[in-house]
């Protein structure tokens, strides 16, 4: 079936995207650390570095909890269906 192929392609793309995202978290973290620890007198750059690190941590955490979110949503839906029926 054509749709099954599409689903597989999307799943594969998602896996590759998540690998890219993980690499990007690391890159953001490293750039953030670099900017934060750089011996430069620009406070904005250092703040931006800190922001990058925070974003990298948040995004890593959010990527890690995706399956948990899926399960949580399914559980909530199950509870709702129990109360409706």
């Amino acid at each position, binding site marked *: 079936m054509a*749709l099954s192929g599409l689903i597989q392609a999307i799943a594969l793309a998602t896996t590759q995207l998540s690998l890219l995202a993980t690499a990007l978290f690391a890159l953001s973290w490293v750039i953030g650390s670099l900017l934060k620890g750089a011996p430069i007198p620009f406070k904005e750059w250092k703040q931006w570095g800190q922001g990058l690190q925070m974003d990298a941590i948040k995004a890593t955490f959010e990527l890690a909890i995706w399956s948990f979110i899926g399960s949580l949503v399914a559980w909530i839906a199950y509870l709702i269906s129990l109360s409706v029926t």
Partner: protein
Amino acid sequence: MDSLPDLPISNLGDNMAIGTLLGLAHALAGMTYVAGTLMQSLPVPKREWKAWGPVMMWDATIAELGIATVSIMQLIVDIISNLIRAELAGPFSSPSVSFLAITSQLVSFDAAIFILISIVNSTIVLAPVAELLVKILGLPVQIVTTAIIIWSIIHIIIGLFPNLWLVLWETGLVFFAIPFRIGRKFASYLMASAIVLAIALPIMPSIALWLEGHLSYELLFGRFQDIVNQVQSNPLALLQLIPLLATSVADLLGAMVIALVIFPFVYLFILSMIIRSLANAFGGSASGPIFSEFVVTQSRESVKTLEESR
């Protein structure tokens, strides 16, 4: 015609299509979420790019919730449909029975006109009158035929919808789960259309019959049938009955046009407004008139003034 016609697609095939669409929506939601985390961690000084991150993650979560609650949605639509049918309790609560009643009314009107013309035509003395009669009754025949076509189309759509609406809802979810909100407007339209039409379309014939009842259609048709019967027994009586026949046909046609020709379009227009309002509630920015514009509420200006005064 006791039940609606079955779809050519088998139930198993239908369920498989729904399952595949759910799988596709789930895969897209996953991709949207991962793309959201990726956008959030982009090491670029562009706030608007990074802002897509939380938005996409939230959209993916909502899409997942939509996927998980498909059976609940089906149940809710069933409950609402049953409640409305119970409210319309009576001989015409089923769409098939209502459609049958409408079709038989239209066909009997058409048949009565044909009988009348053929009787008059077969009487040689009344041949010139027959020509006049054809001119008078030509428009009613056209209108009745149009009404039959309209209601046949409606019946086919109503017959399809019990199986089709879930596929439409799922397709809406698939478009909703596409990253960067690309299919969000179309998705909200599809989902809103699926729900509103699944609930409101099957009750359309019953409401048309209810409207007909209020317009005294049965009484008017009885009067017309009485004239046809009189002409059938004595064709020459038509000469005295022509003014009465014209009035009777005009009254009957008025009721028929309002209940069976204009009403479906008005009903569908109202449904389209409700769909737009619901699509807006689902997050799509629909254009055109929406239902809330026709409901008496505080104007935006007055609300703004109130907010400012606080």
